[in-house]
């Protein structure tokens, strides 16, 4: 394992240590691709014993548990606990702008997003969930956390300004968490949400922003250049643009929030200047609810 992955993992361990084991809220999903040991606290299809109940009409003779029935006069049927498959897919944007850090005292956005993603993944894994990066087969266990950490760090930064989550990797019953700054073209994200809504996939959009992007502290003559250099904007009076920029940012957020709500998703914001545990708690509560 690379040292960088080591660090990421250690950071994620620290961030997720305070969290209780996170269990995805049980929601029946019609077709789980991968059966998971996720007790639904009711009788159903599964492997574990749930309860004995008196046999009713319609129960086949094969289903009667004879050993239990022999101890009384009635016939009992052995129910098993219903189990559903639950998996979570995590995606962190690799757009060129994600390595931006407004100050030396702040981490880059991608670093913070990786940290949040891995912390979340570890919490989920600790609860027995199957977790994977989007597009990869989800697996349970602590070992998966290490694979995830490696995969997160190993993914190279793109030289484009936008990175779209892989819509073709969406599977029904997944819960998806997207980390991005959502400052690029919003259309791929909207398309992704529409497809997710069709497949019944729920999830969270997590917007990770640097305080500079949130507050727009520039003044005077500034030549703005996007991370890849593809876009530029020249201004003589940056401070005068602040209001317009903030308005556009709010508009973008409103657009994403609306689209998320329509698809049954959540939209959250995280500032790299703030503590990561805040965002993690929010993510947890959203995924739990």
């Amino acid at each position: 394992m690379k040292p960088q992955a080591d660090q990421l993992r250690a950071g994620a361990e620290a961030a997720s240590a305070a969290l209780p084991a996170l269990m995805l809220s049980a929601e029946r999903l019609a077709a789980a691709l991968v059966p998971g040991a996720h007790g639904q606290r009711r009788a159903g299809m599964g492997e574990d014993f749930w309860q004995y109940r008196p046999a009713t009409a319609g129960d086949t003779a094969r289903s009667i548990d004879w050993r239990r029935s022999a101890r009384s006069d009635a016939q009992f049927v052995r129910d098993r606990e219903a189990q559903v498959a639950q998996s979570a897919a995590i995606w962190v944007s690799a757009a060129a702008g994600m390595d931006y850090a407004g100050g030396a005292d702040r981490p880059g956005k991608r670093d913070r997003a990786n940290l949040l993603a891995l912390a979340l993944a570890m919490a989920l894994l600790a609860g027995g969930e199957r977790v994977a990066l989007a597009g990869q087969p989800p697996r349970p266990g602590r070992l998966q956390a290490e694979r995830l950490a490696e995969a997160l760090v190993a993914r190279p930064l793109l030289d484009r300004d936008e990175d779209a989550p892989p819509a073709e990797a969406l599977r029904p019953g997944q819960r998806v968490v997207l980390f991005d700054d959502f400052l690029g073209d919003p259309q791929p994200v909207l398309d992704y949400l529409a497809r997710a809504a069709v497949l019944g996939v729920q999830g969270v959009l997590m917007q990770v922003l640097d305080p500079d992007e949130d507050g727009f502290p520039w003044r005077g003559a500034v030549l703005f250049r996007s991370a890849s250099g593809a876009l530029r904007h020249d201004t003589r009076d940056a401070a005068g643009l602040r209001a317009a920029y903030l308005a556009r940012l709010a508009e973008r957020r409103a657009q994403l929030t609306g689209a998320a709500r329509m698809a049954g998703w959540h939209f959250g914001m995280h500032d790299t200047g703030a503590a990561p545990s805040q965002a993690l708690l929010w993510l947890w509560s959203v995924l739990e609810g």
Partner: protein
Amino acid sequence: MLLIGPIGFLTPWILAALAALPVLWLILRAMPPSPRLVRFPGTRLLLGLKDPHPVARHTPWWLLLLRVLAIAALILGFAGPVWKPSPDQAGQGPLLVVMDAGWAAAPDWPQRQARALRALDRAAAAGQPAALLVADGTATGALPFLPATELAAQLRALRPAAWETRYPPDPQAALAEAPAGLSVLWLSDGLDHPGRAEWLAALSGRSSVTVVPPEGAQQTLELVAGDQPALRLRSTGTAAPEVLAIGLDPQGMPRELARLKPGESAQDRGVTSWLVPIDLPSELRNRITRFEIEGQASAGAVLLADDSLRRRKVALAGDDRAGEGQRLLSPLHYLRRALAPTTDLIEGGLGDVLQAAPDVIVLADQIGLAEEPGLREWVEGGGLLIRFAGPRMAASERLAEEPLLPVRLRAGGRDVGGALAWGEPRSVAPFAADGPFAGLSVPNDTTVRAQLLAEPAPDLADRSIARLSDGTPLVTRTVLGQGQLVLFHTTANAEWSNLAISGLFVEMLDRLVRSARASAAAPEADRAEQPFWLPELVLDGFGRTTEAEGLAPVAAADFARGPAPGAPAGLYRGGERVAALNAGGPMAPADWPGARIERGAQAPGLDLRGWLVALAAVLFALDALGSAWLARGRQGAMA
């Protein structure tokens, strides 16, 4: 020089830079202050936004005008503008530059070179031939006239010589190749030199002569021989500079040992001269290696110290009784201790020391020795004979016939403070204000118990230069030939008096020795014996010492004539003697009948350079203020 209306430009080609001003205007105009480059992921959100407060993308025209004007002022300033320059009156014909290249030309040598180079440049521009007459005594034959460009390097390499300016002896022969229509630029050192009048006449006859006299005054330094060595400071100006005495300090480092102030001044035909007494303790004086006039860098303002200023040679003659008696009883012991720090001592028999040609001979309590052959001749030739009385003289039968005494002595002597005498020991009376001991203070406890008395004579009072408190002579002096005879009427040891163990004794001897002539006859004799003088240390024209390399020995006859080509000013060694050849001496200011005199080495006219550069500075300051004001306005708009 380029003339535009009343303004001339010394370096007009710089004006070509003015052509760049419109380009500069365009560049300054098209270049707004460069924006800060910021990498910002949210740039997409900014696309299409308009600046709410449009700020001028161009520098305001008045700021631009200010900057361009400032740069124009700089360019004009560096082009060397001169308001109403006096047109060069020298003709456009062939040019002859006469360059006085003696030591007197050294102080403002760079200005002379620059002036001559300007003239050569003009001749080169006009395509006229030019010639350079370097008046340092080395030019021979007819002057070659060359293209002016070829002379510039020669002129730059010229250095003033450490001797007087010398013109070639025959002007007509030197000017044999001179073309017609000659214009002459004479860079004079302001002094008259042999042959100058002939040259001026010869040049005036065939051409127009422009003379550039030096700006500053010429100053020279000369040693005045005499009992008390002094310096003569001559100047064509009236200000009296100080003279620095430079020598080795006790650590052996050359440094300024003293500053001598000029005394009385005297005017003589445009030259002011001061006598500068070298009023220094002997120890200090002996260490001096050179005198120089403060602030005058020329060989004429430097006087190298040689033997004539150095320690006197003092011979102690007579038997030294240290062998048979105790050392503190020997008169020679006290004399040795008193004289050794400031003089060169020679000891031996009288016949031997006479061979060494001393300046002073001291005889302590000797009788009969004065008949030594050659002693009288030595004194008459300028020697100083100092004699001390003593028991042996007092006991002599033939004291009255003893020669080489300043006064006739009475036999027997006088005992004033002895055990069998009634009187008290006598103290020394204060010295007369005009005698050789003037100014020396007499300690109260100096007493004389015994003395030799002089026969009363009419001139006894004149011959006494020190007396006891009762008026009897203590020291008498007379002149014999060119020399002097001095007699101390008491002993040189503590037998008759405690004078010998007082500080006064040292001071009196020092005064006497300093009054001795420094081997007046010796140099001629030496020069005859010493046909050649070897240069040891020579001066360049600026008065700086350089190693004497590649210089041939100088024949004594040439040496006597003073510094010349091949024998620059400096220190020369001949056998035991070291003699200085000093450049300074009498001088006479030159006059220039019929020649045009150019005042000032710089081109006349009002130099505008400083004003224009100052104007540019003011404009740049205004520009800075304007820029600051603009920035403040922008910030106000942002707030």
